[in-house]
């Protein structure tokens, strides 16, 4: 559980650091998510007040973008590309294998809280698909064997 006063202090710092940007909301949301791993509901009133928006408007922006989370992810995030170039190299099969192994669907988190599985539409690795990203690390030619290795690695 996040400490409420710690959160509001950090959010105040983040808001101050972005005060002079034109159109600062996305950079602010990225910074908050980088800090806490998600965007706590408790931060919305402060963001809204600083930018002269309603809480609903801030919520509307958060919910529009796939990147922003309203709840924490698992300890590791495994993203698998679902786009066409990776499909041509068997991405659907690899994704089904990962879902089966982890026992989760897209956006799901394993029961032990270790891994969240996310779809991604293109990592720009289209000539070495299927592509994956584990906690920000890029992986090309990610077949079933590689997926098993990645899952074993993050669960270790």
């Amino acid at each position, binding site marked *: 559980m996040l400490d409420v006063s710690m959160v509001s202090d950090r959010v105040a710092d983040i808001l101050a650091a972005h005060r002079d940007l034109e159109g600062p909301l996305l950079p602010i949301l990225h910074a908050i998510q980088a800090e806490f791993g998600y965007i706590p509901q408790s931060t919305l009133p402060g963001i809204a007040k600083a930018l002269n928006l309603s809480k609903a408007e801030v919520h509307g922006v958060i919910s529009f973008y796939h990147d922003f989370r309203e709840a924490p992810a698992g300890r590791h995030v495994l993203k698998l590309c679902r786009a066409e170039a990776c499909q041509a190299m068997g991405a659907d099969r690899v994704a089904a294998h990962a879902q089966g192994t982890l026992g989760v669907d897209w956006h799901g988190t394993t029961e032990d809280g270790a891994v969240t599985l996310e779809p*991604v*539409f*293109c990592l720009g690795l*289209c*000539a070495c698909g299927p592509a994956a990203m584990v906690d920000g690390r890029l992986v090309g030619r990610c077949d079933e064997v590689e997926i098993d290795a990645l899952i074993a690695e993050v669960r270790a």
Partner: protein
Amino acid sequence: MKIYIPLDSAAVALGADALAAAVAAEARRLDREVEIIRNGSRGMVWLEPLVEVVTPQGRIGFGPMTPADVPGLFADLAVHPKALGPVEELPWMKGQTRLTFARVGIIDPLSLADYEAEGGLSGLRKAVAMDPAAIVAEVTASGLRGRGGAGFPTGIKWKTVSEAVADRKYIVCNADEGDSATFADRMLMEGDPFTLIEGMIIAGLATGATKGFVYIRSEYPVAIRVMEEACRLARAAGLLGGSVLGSGPAFDIEIRVGAGAYVCGEETSLLNSLEGKRGVVRAKPPLPALEGFLGRPTVVNNVISLASVPVIFEKGAAFYKDFGLGRSRGTIPLQIAGNVRFGGLYEVAFGLTLGDIVDGIAGGCATGRPVKAVQVGGPLGAYHPRSEFDTPFGYEEFAGKDGLIGHAGLTVFDDSADMLKQARFAMEFCAIESCGKCTPCRIGAVRGVETVDRIAKGDAAAIPLLTDLCVTMKSGSLCALGGFTPYPVMSALTHFPDDFARSKEAAE
């Protein structure tokens, strides 16, 4: 000893970071002096990680490298099992006309000295001495068209912004390269970021804009890091800031990061996102050129459009225009992807046929099976069968085949592809990524998935319904997401009808 090891995302995804660490460790073990330069990729992704060692005979390539191949780099290079010879002499490199990508893979992307030594800034030095109308005229004369996909003449867009009267104007670089099979923007930003910066500064000089944004998708962490560092270096060198090159007007660039919404690659949606709003598409008019970012006149150009500007000024509009065919002038960085033997980036003048690219350059399918279809132009592009392999690569030529070249990405599929499944995916993708503003896209895509599912269950009566839905989406959507999703769907249906002829028994 000087060794180049790419920092490019594709090379990193195939182990370049581990390789760089292995080279450094081996050098320490042998007590050898080694300078490791992290360069961009040469674009031969099947050879990545491609390591280059500088020798008196030039830069010799080794790839695809694994850590086990590293000790051999410190022995007799001629007998190294991964030796490829001089990189410049490889057929993939010799066949290209590298104008926009001239420096990518060659220089240290974060060395301004390297950049200038390879011709960088000479275009800007010419432009800074010209008046804005002359800069616009030069870009117009080059025949450069928007490389993001729409193909709108860049010079005309710049002219509109240049002639608009406002207290502030903006240059926005669209680096939200979300189309599958495209990675040219990423490679350019990772491998030669100063070219993009130089192009944006020239756009600023041409239009009177003093502020630029590069909106990079969050899926590109390496490109974000390199661009941020390049902007910092450019500022320190006086390239960006209060006075461009010490004599020009002010111009600065800010890097912004997207948040995983495909539709933000559409220019008006991107502008809303940049302003901190939901990435919802705006109706046009007003054109962004007149009322763009924060309601001010704004140039929104793709990375490759802007990065092609420096070479146009360095070598002249006539030089650039001399390449190409018809109304498609200059060069285009083809991105060859999917199921291919040789995938990567290949910059060449417009005009190669689809067959030249797929059967020739790409060498057919990686799986060794026959090519069934090629999707050109990303998720909103058509699937082309072999019977269209004689189509020359150009904007009008592909439009004439009910397709588009888009951002010039090609995804190759072998004969195991199920085109009904691909059509379903196109609709599903549109449904997931729709911004929700217009009904044909928001509702149409959902109904499209359902209709394809009916066809998959053997309901042939749903085929005319799908066709009808595509007509509505094509003519009734606000932007290319809903408007172009019918391209992959209808091309799959038209060219591969057998995949849609499911019998009820087989489906059950």
